Every structure is written in C-alpha cells, then in structure tokens.
C-alpha cells in the first residue's frame, strides 16, 4: 500500500467485455477519502458492472479496481471495512428486513445490537423490520440496503443507485448521511442516472456513457465550464456590448444569452456599455445537464433534443 492510495478507490484501465460487447471500456478514475464521488451515467452505461467488479463479484477482462491498494478479495472480513449496496431488490423476498441484517451481522461477527442501531438509523420501525421484504416498497428496500452497507461500520462506501425509490425526504436524509461520512474522512462512491441527485450530493463527479468515462472532475470544475447566463431588457444592446468586449455569446431561451466567459467579465462588459441587466448568473445546473445530455446522447435510448436543455 503506497501513501498515494491510502483510503482511495483506484480504478485503472478497467475493461469488461461480454462477447464482443464492451460494457466497461478502459475506465480509469479515483475516489478520494473525505469526498463524495458521484458516478453519473444513463442506464446501461456500465456503472453497475464497474461497481460489481470493485466488489469482486464480476471478474474484469482487463485492468484493476483496487481499494486502498488492495484487491477486494484480499480484504479480510470486507463487510467491516467496505460497505457495499449493489441492488436493494436483490433480497430473498421471504426474509424479514431484520433477518437480512441479522444474517449479515452474523457473517461479519458483529453484536446483534448493531442490527437495532442500523434499523433506527435508516428509520425502519421495529414493526416494519419484522415484515417480509416482499411487502416492502422500493424506498424501504433501499433503506434496508443502506442499513446493510453501514452495518459493519465501514470507512469506504460503494453504493449503486442508493437514492432510487427514496422520497424527497429520504434523499435529503441520505445526502446528510453521506456528507457526514465524507466529512469524517470516509470515502464514498455512489452512482445515479439522475443528474440532480449527483449534483446535490457529490463533490466530485465522474460521467460515464457507453462504458467510457466522458468527463470527470470536481463539481466546481465541471460547473465552471458551463459559463454565464445573462439577460438584459434590451437584448440587442446587450449583444452589441458583448461583441464590443470580444465575448462570444449565443442565444439561450427566454431572450437571454449564454457565454463561456465568467459572470464578472460579462457584468463589466454590460456596465461599460451602460446596458441594464435583468439577470446575470453562472449557467450551472443547465450547463451540467447540457453536458450530461450531450456527452451521453449517443448512449441514450431515447432521441435527445439538447434544445430543451438549453432553453
């Protein structure tokens, strides 16, 4: 274990092929301790396959996925060191929620008090915990899955679509939970096919499409590339002012303009020309969404019109 990899998840040139189909194609990235890393991509982009390889469930065709420099299979009693949630619905429908946690706790050699603690943490009532999982809603299964991942008090979390099926309050709860984990120095990797979820939870974002990494960086980095949205009462005066200042801009719905330049420069240019602005803000959400849609357009099942995102 070198100093560089301590606590980190390091995926290096990972490839998984099924017949001739490359589900994961030369993927490299790292997740560092103290941060929540979001793994973003449309359905079938290769997120789950990558995460299954990390947890030693799927053999890689080429490349490695190491946790703190160690192969998952070489970690003794891994549940006490890495919390994994791969599919909340992959449960024996006939077991009660409590029983599922009990089995995991027994396997890891934990005291049974951990089961009650985790049930309380994920807000599954004693009554609910004694019901069979086939009677659980997707949100309850997700909570149970998260409880199962946290059971062994791990410092590293790998969660595949943990927010799927949670109600808004549940998503808020999970966000603070993962934030707390990362703030205490833990390493958190979570995947989602929903941009908004990743945007509110993650510090660092990895975007995957068609098995390939299409973008990665801190949220700030990815957002800063989105530029500025600016709007004035007199649209043509604003356009002229920007041209004069040497700023290229393009129309962006609602009579506003979008530019790659930062808001401060754009504001100055407008002030110099004496143009009164109605709106001046970083084009953040829309910018990332636009990027996500564009970068993954070829892998989307539906035909995507980026116009909608620009508007």
């Amino acid at each position, binding site marked *: *274990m070198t100093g560089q990899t*301590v*606590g980190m998840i390091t995926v290096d040139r990972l490839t998984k092929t099924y017949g001739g189909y490359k589900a994961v194609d030369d993927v490299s990235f790292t997740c560092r*301790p103290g941060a929540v890393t979001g793994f973003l991509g449309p359905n079938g982009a290769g997120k789950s396959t990558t995460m*299954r390889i990390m*947890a*030693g*469930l*799927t*053999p890689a065709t080429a490349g490695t996925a190491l*946790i*703190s*420099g*160690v192969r*998952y*299979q*070489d*970690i*003794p*009693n*891994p*549940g*006490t*060191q*890495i919390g*994994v949630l*791969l*599919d909340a*619905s*992959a*449960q*024996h*429908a*006939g*077991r009660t929620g409590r*029983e*599922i946690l*009990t*089995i*995991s706790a*027994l*396997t*890891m*050699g934990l005291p049974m008090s951990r089961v009650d603690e985790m049930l309380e943490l994920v807000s599954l009532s004693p009554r609910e915990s004694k019901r*069979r999982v086939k009677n659980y809603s997707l949100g309850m299964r997700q909570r149970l899955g998260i409880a*199962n991942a946290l059971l062994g008090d791990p*410092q*590293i979390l790998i969660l595949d679509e943990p927010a799927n099926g949670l109600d808004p309050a549940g998503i808020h709860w999970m966000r603070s939970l993962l934030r707390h984990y990362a703030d*205490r*120095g*833990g*390493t958190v990797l979570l995947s989602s096919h929903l941009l908004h979820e990743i945007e509110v939870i993650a510090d660092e974002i990895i975007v995957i499409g068609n098995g390939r990494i299409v973008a990665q960086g801190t949220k700030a980095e990815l957002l800063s590339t989105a530029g500025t949205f600016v709007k004035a009462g007199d649209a043509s005066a604003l356009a002229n002012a920007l041209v004069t200042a040497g700023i290229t801009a393009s129309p962006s719905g609602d009579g506003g303009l979008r530019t790659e330049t930062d808001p401060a420069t754009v504001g100055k240019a407008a002030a110099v020309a004496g143009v009164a602005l109605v709106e001046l803000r970083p084009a953040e959400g829309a910018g990332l969404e636009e990027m996500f849609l564009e970068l993954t357009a070829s892998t989307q099942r539906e035909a995507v019109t980026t116009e909608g995102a620009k508007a």
Partner: protein
Amino acid sequence: MSTVTIDTDRPSIPLSRLVKVELRKMFDTRSGFWLMMSIAIVALLATIGCILFVPNEDLEFGVFGQAVGFPMVLLLPVIAILSVTSEWSQRTGLITFTLAPHRGQVVAAKAITAVIVGVAGMVVAFAIGGLGNIVGSAINGVDPVWNISFLDFVLIVLANVLGLLVGFMLGVLIRNTPGAIVAYVAYSFLLPTIFGILAAFQDWFKDLQPWIDFGYSQTPLFDGGPSGEEWAQLGTSGLIWLVIPLTVGVWAVLRSEVK
C-alpha cells in the same frame, strides 16, 4: 475515523461462522422452514400409512425404515439444491459473496450444512418410524421387531447423504432451481434405466456397470454393507458422477459473475 485504511491483518471469517449462517438461512424463510418441517411431516404420514395398510404380521422396523426413508431420497437433495440455487435465483448472492468473497469457502459451508441437515433429517425420520414401530406393535399386542442394526442405519444414512450431495452437486453445476431439480430427477431415475438396458443387452457393459453406475454401486448400502470390492466400485462411480462434476461446478462458481 481520521485516515481511511484497509486492515489486511484483520481476522478473516471462519468457516464455522459461515456454517452457522447457512444453517440459519435454511430455516428463516417460510418456505425453507416448511421444507424442513416436511421431513418430519412426511415421515409421520409414511409411518401412519404403514400402521394402517401394512398387514399386521409384516409390521417391523425395517418396513417403517423403508417407508420413511423413501421420501428422503427426493426431499434431501431438494433441500441441498435450494441452499445453493437460491443465492442465484433470489439474488442473495450479491450480499453473500460480497461479505464472504472467498466463494469456495461459502460453497464448503453450504455443503457441510446440507450434510448436517441430511443426517439430522434421517435421524428424525427414523425416530418417527421407530415410534411407529412401538405404537404399531402395541396396537397388535406383539413385541416390536427391531430388524435394522445401527450399522444398517449408518449405511442407509450414508446412501442418503450421497443422494443429497448429488443434489448439491447439480445445484452448484446448474445454479438454477428448476433446472437442478429436473436434472436430479433425470439423474436418479433416467440414468439407472439407461444403464440397466445397456447391461441387459451388452455383455461387455455388464462387468463394467458396478464400476461406473453410481446408483448400482450404492445398492449394497441397503443390503448389509458393501464388500471391499464394492467400496472400490462406490469410489470409482462416485468419482465419475459426483466428485468430478462437483469440481467442475465449484470451478465455474469461482469464475462466474454474481449479478
């Protein structure tokens, strides 16, 4: 939690703990629980059937033993099959093999658990049969006849454990519940028929049969115990029909994708 590290010196999960977990998993669902209970229930029904329908002068422990033993030939392998295939069909393997990534150890724990359940099941079934023998004799006003020795019983248990392991092997090899059960039925009913026909019409096969027909080579277990040569035949046929396919199955499980 100041720095995140992976502790590679932590003790790994002992096999005994996995056996305990697997044993629990056999009972903790309604279907699993009743499958286990069915051992006792079927044994009880078979025993009552013996008392009701077998002519009084023929009622002896051997008859009860045969009656309670027969359903076990199907029940025990099904229990063994389900313990393996449910990890795939119910997708619980996603958690099982994440918490215990050494799959060979998990398979070993499941095999040990299945054998424990098989032996315990046979003891329960024969205890119920023995009770039937006492009750039946009392009804007839005669002394009960105990014509199964302890050695006989051990050999019968051994034969049933072999059958259970065949089911286990098919579960590991096929990893699909209906597929493995159908394969078991074909294995235990179709295969002996084919061997029988072959032996009846082909002289060269007749001498070979005991060495390669696993069902045939098990018959001495129900008939006072195998001779030295018969043990050897049990070994060679068991190697062909149990050990080799189980090895292939375990090898496939170690390399397969759990999803």
